[in-house]
């Protein structure tokens, strides 16, 4: 370890951290599972409580917003249901990314674990909870089956994009939140706003000539990449471009920040 690492050296060390973190496959899945178990220990339904409440919310909102927006009920309910579930995954990732490092201060200040482990733990945990919620989607699709074709296979690709992007998001938000404790509050207030700006309850085409307002929102594309295949709709090429671009830009920014401040995180948390 040289006293003043060069910038290339720093990037290499940051990448090493990410690689080592990813390779610690017996650490982060276990920590993620443990957190879920901790949260729902001795609760009979466990994570399915959120599934239930989400299901109930969709059941109530579906007819209401379907009516308000003049939508065909059979088409709207799957749209809303899937949208809500995917949105919850994204919203939780946004919120919980902020606590990625601060909530692991005990580990960070005492152990030499790759910091990426804590990011992966957060992502893994949310994917597990998302998997529970797939039950709601399954029920909705059972009653209102879409035309199923090969596009369904793109759904895991969409989820993978969310997971991959959640990693850089976790690094960046976790790092910023460790240093600036206003960030979690800021993100916490931004997420509900984002909910209304993202086509979860409304459809982008309802905006007519203002559709671009939905398209410039990256969250729209993450949502689309999972929702459209489940509804049997094609995923537009713009969405894939947007996701790829977001991934590249996100990792670049996160890697710059992580390289520069990785060793400071232990002092901040």
């Amino acid at each position: 370890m040289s006293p003043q690492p060069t910038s290339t050296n720093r990037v290499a060390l940051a990448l090493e951290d990410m690689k080592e973190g990813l390779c610690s496959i017996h650490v982060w899945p276990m920590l993620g599972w443990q957190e879920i178990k901790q949260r729902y220990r001795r609760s009979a339904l466990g994570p399915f409580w959120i599934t239930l409440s989400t299901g109930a919310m969709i059941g109530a909102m579906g007819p209401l917003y379907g009516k308000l927006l003049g939508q065909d009920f059979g088409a709207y309910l799957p749209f809303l249901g899937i949208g809500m579930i995917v949105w919850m995954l994204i919203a939780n990732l946004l919120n919980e990314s902020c606590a990625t490092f601060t909530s692991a201060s005990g580990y960070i200040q005492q152990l030499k674990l790759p910091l990426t482990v804590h990011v992966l733990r957060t992502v893994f945990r949310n994917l597990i909870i998302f998997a529970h919620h797939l039950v709601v989607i399954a029920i909705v699709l059972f009653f209102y089956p879409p035309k199923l074709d090969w596009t369904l296979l793109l759904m895991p690709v969409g989820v993978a994009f969310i997971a991959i992007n959640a990693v850089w998001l976790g690094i960046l938000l976790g790092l910023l939140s460790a240093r600036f404790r206003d960030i979690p509050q800021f993100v916490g207030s931004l997420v509900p706003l984002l909910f209304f700006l993202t086509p979860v309850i409304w459809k982008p085409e309802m905006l007519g000539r203002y559709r671009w307002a939905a398209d410039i929102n990256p969250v729209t594309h993450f949502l689309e990449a999972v929702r459209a295949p489940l509804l049997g709709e094609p995923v537009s090429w713009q969405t894939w471009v947007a996701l790829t671009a977001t991934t590249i830009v996100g990792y670049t920014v996160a890697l710059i920040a992580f390289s520069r401040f990785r060793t400071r995180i232990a002092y901040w948390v």
Partner: protein
Amino acid sequence: MTTPRIKADSVVVEFPIYGSQSRSFRRTFIRAATGGRLARDSADRVVIRALDGVSFDFREGDRVGLVGHNGSGKSTLLRVIAGAYVPVAGSLDVVGRVASMLSITLGMDPEATGFENIFLRGAIMGLSPSEIEERVDEICAFAELGDYIDMPLRTYSSGMSMRLAFAISTSLKADIILMDEWLSAGDASFTAKAQKRLLELVEQAKILVVASHSPETIHTNCNRILRLDHGSVAGETTLVAMPHGTGMDESSRLAQPDSNARERSKPESSVPKMSQLSLEERLQIWTSRGQPSYDENNLVTWSQSTDFLHDERFLAAYRRGMASGHNLSMFAGSDGDLRIRWRVAMYCWAARHAARLPGDFVDCGTGTGIYSLAVCHYIDFNATGKSFWLFDTFEGIPEEQMSDDERTLGRADENQARFGPCYERARENFAPYPKARLVRGKVPDTLATAAVDRVCYLSIDMNIAYPERAALEHFWPRLVTGGIAILDNYGWLPYRAQKAALDEFAAQNGVEVMMLPTGQGLLIKA
């Protein structure tokens, strides 16, 4: 294979303090009573400099003890070595597998079962599931949890969870072991077993770094002491020659003062040999131990229990003895306390023991009654129904009984300065004890005048050899079985004539005087 090593070169660790937009912090170093130095970094933020240019080179065989008061940087240094904190300046090289025992419960979940916790904690320690699988039976057996291993950790007693945490954390062999205070676990019966296991682990490790406030820990387990103060190395001591390299390295500034030190110490030995150290080094070790538990009358200890110092009954008796109106204080303005608590405690113990035996109490060399008053008060002498025979000239040491040697060693001066007529004072002091009998005159002349047949307690403190030996010769045959004799000046070098005379008597009678650390001699009649 690379050799384990920890090399630090001017390591600096600074904790930024956010949210204290401090008006009061000037552009200067502020030296706090404890803790790291407060400073400002280049960006003008307030920082705590927890480590300030720490350099060292720990190599194979080093057993390093980190000492220093709270906030001196010991724990921070351990965390830096563990790899949690990266120094803001300087460099640190750690070669070898590190087992960090800084927090052995880290990663354990109270809601998870003991069994699950073995896997949780194991993963945190860097073990793969298969590696944990290999150890799990051994850990369960060692922790002695029985069927509890399948119960949630929250149902455990604190001793049980410590046992489990200890068993897991000590199951991993490593090149470098880091500990913040020596680990201990569980109840008394488990402790011995746990210590054995920990010592075995430490034994096989190449480097040990332990931070501790306990002198025993440091001196039992370490061969190097690194003293931190305000985040800097305030001193480094090497206790024995290192097994590696040339034996000594340049960083041990105070190590082995002379060149043949290495030949005197055996490299394979890891036990520090205090006798080989210079006075300066010893002073440093003593200082590192903090407050002694006892420091009076040429007797200093840091580790021994001194419970009697908190025994109110003893202290009251002690105060009574000190208030006897003696003239022995060396310093003007003294409160009369001679600071000889441990010596007095020996008499009190002997008296309590003797009170249950047949026979009387005898004190040769009573003076104003410093010891015997304390004894009477301590055992409530009137309740024993015994007589207390108190022999003394009550006017100092008879000059004609002194040998030339004793005169040279200062007995005559002592007589002049400290012993004057005190008969009246002694009579007054012992007035509450009707069966305390003062026998005034020179020992041994007076011994025959007193009708003492059986003695259970004999105190001899006449500061010269001739009457002391005569008194012991007179009373030894009269001492009952189990009776105790305490020879006050026995082990004190300026009174060596007495030791020679008393040893001679003892040898003739087939006994040996027990030399107490207080300088007193002890005989028990068989």
